[in-house]
């Protein structure tokens, strides 16, 4: 029984691990083409992404800080995918959540613990509302949710640009940004000089809550069944439509929460260029993490480390453009999608192993 479970786990992580290794090989090829030192590059990538130069000044801590919104947008994508909705609207929901949090952060004044709670709640509501739009359009009219969410993402990005340039603009500096939020609304960080803090704990809690929701509650079961087979769910008496809308609302709330935490814990305001494709990265970590909350958690930290290593290590130390990080992540997704490439060969090896073990068992019985 135990070995069966182990085998299932191995099956689940085998393709992502092989895909990551293949991605690193592609990275090596690109580095060789650029005529940069190959092994030094790998060493710098990992030491700058995951390493610890001295105690209390760990770059890994920064990777955890950067992973916080990624975990939440990744979870948001997981909840949507698991209901059969291919929503990539995390970016838009994240942005609008951030905008409302930044606004309420300076517009209303509340005592310390209450203020962050109100902001997070508001951001989750706004995100949920923005997730509900493509959900209802899909269920009632059959509007393609992928295209609808892409359009909603661009709309949200333009709304943010408008907000920081006009109604929410703090001062007349060269880059437009909103006023800093109240001290009472800011999230505490664990270490001085770092922004890794309470937000990460909330993200970890969200991982647990999403896991329990999807695999331990009736609503979550209904949602997963609706995602796997609409017809089966229908025969089982599950209303897959309302399950899909519920999933989109939860998904939007998670992405909105990510925006609020990014504002309260890291930037303390919103500014032009606030959107850096975090929603899209969340989507990719959901794909690579096998649409599983724990998978997302691991992959989000890995991604943040890779990007950080590419930015701080490869770009600053070796002059390799930091876009290498994003390129490699793209290739890793490609390799995950081409999982059959590995699986065919894996099953061939496994067949061979099985045949050998059967033969040896037969030999013993004889």
């Amino acid at each position, binding site marked *: 029984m135990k070995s069966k479970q182990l085998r299932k786990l191995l099956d689940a992580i085998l393709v992502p691990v092989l895909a990551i290794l293949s991605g690193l090989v592609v990275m090596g090829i*690109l580095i060789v083409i*650029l005529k940069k030192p190959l092994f030094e590059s790998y060493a710098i990538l990992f030491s700058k992404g995951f390493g610890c130069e001295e105690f209390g000044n760990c770059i890994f801590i920064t990777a955890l800080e950067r992973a916080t919104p990624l975990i939440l947008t990744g979870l948001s994508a997981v909840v949507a995918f698991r209901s059969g909705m*291919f929503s*990539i609207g995390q970016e838009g929901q994240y942005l609008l959540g951030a905008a409302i949090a930044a606004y309420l952060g300076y517009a209303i004044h509340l005592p310390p613990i209450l203020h962050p709670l109100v902001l997070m709640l508001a951001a989750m509501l706004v995100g949920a509302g923005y997730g509900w739009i493509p959900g209802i*359009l899909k269920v009632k*009219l*059959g*509007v*393609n949710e*992928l*295209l*609808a969410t*892409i*359009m*909603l993402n*661009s*709309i949200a990005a*333009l*709304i943010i*640009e*408008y907000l920081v*340039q*006009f109604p929410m603009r703090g001062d007349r500096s060269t880059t437009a940004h909103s006023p800093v939020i109240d001290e009472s609304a800011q999230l505490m960080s664990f270490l001085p000089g770092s922004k890794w803090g309470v937000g990460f704990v909330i993200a970890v809690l969200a991982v647990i809550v999403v896991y329990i929701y999807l695999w331990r509650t009736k609503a979550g079961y209904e949602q997963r069944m609706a995602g796997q087979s609409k017809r089966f769910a229908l025969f089982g008496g599950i209303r897959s439509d309302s399950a899909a809308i519920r999933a989109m609302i939860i998904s939007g709330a998670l992405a909105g929460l990510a925006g609020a935490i990014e504002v309260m814990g890291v930037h303390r305001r919103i500014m032009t260029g606030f959107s850096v494709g975090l929603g*899209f990265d969340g*989507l*990719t970590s959901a*794909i690579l993490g096998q649409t599983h909350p724990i998978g997302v958690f691991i992959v989000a930290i890995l991604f943040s480390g890779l990007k950080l290593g590419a930015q701080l290590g490869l770009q600053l130390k070796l002059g*390799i*453009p930091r*876009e*290498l*990080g*994003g*390129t490699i*992540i*793209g*290739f890793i*997704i*490609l390799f*995950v*999608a*081409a999982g*059959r*490439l590995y699986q065919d060969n894996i099953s061939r090896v496994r067949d061979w192993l099985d045949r050998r073990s059967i033969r040896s068992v037969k030999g013993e019985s004889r």
Partner: protein
Amino acid sequence: MEGFFSVFTVELLNSGIRLATPILLAALGGAICNQAGVLNLALESKMLLGAFVGILAAFYLGNSYGGLLVAMVAGGLLGLLFAFLYHKYKVDLVILAIAFNLIIVELTVFVMRAMFGNVGSWSDPSIVRIPDIEIPIIKDIPLLGPILSGYNLIVYFSWLVVIVMFIYLYRMRGGRHLRAVGENLSAAETVGINAILLQTLALVASGALAALGGAFLSIGHLKLFTRNMSNGRGWIAIAAAMFGVNHPIGVFLASLFFGFADAFSVRIQNVTDLPPNLVKLLPNLATLLVLIIIAMRSKIAISMARRRFRSQLHAEGTAAATEK
């Protein structure tokens, strides 16, 4: 009110047609893939690749038309890779498209920075923009002349593609086979149609067309390359293909609609003092609206078909009863 009407001018029509061209080329590529039954969501990445490779080739060849050709070849090759991964390894087309979109966005900037230093956008004075052509007789027709004449070669080529694709799909054997594959793959294969070949051809053609649309942006319209230059036009093209029911003429009209929405928002920014970010929403809102219209249209079509089927059943039932 005067300010509002001053928006509508011949220049608006001209820039609408120009801005429709990249969308039209990519949407035609999307339409032929839809007709062949392969969902091509990677138009955005193929456009961006075309924009980058096109300007790069124009620079090294010293010839912008050469740049267009190289861009088309690059897009076609990406389409071929797509077809290979899809047919050989059964890769999910949606995830494949997302992976390629990410790779191309990052890789183009990576290569640009590796070659030309740490820059946000790149151009070179030696690069020549594809020149506009005045058509001799047509340009002298009053009213129509200024609207139809004075674009560059890519614009006229895109119109030619509309006609050629219409003839191919609806008047030729190969096109009928292609549509049969999209309609019912296994039935088409049973009668001996090489479905994999036709789908591969559709993906290659689509890649070449989308890449040409991208090259229009970098060497036909502007004269530079910037990060994520296609800026969502590939996704709008997918909506345009759906809006035009994958028919070349329909796609042409749908693309014009999106081109005008784009030109309109640019023009409003120039003549009014509305906040530019809000006006830029127009094309996106138009696309969302179109998606809703498409969905409602197909919903109505389904309910009509159901009603027709029911009334047929009813008619047959009464006919059978009277025979008895």
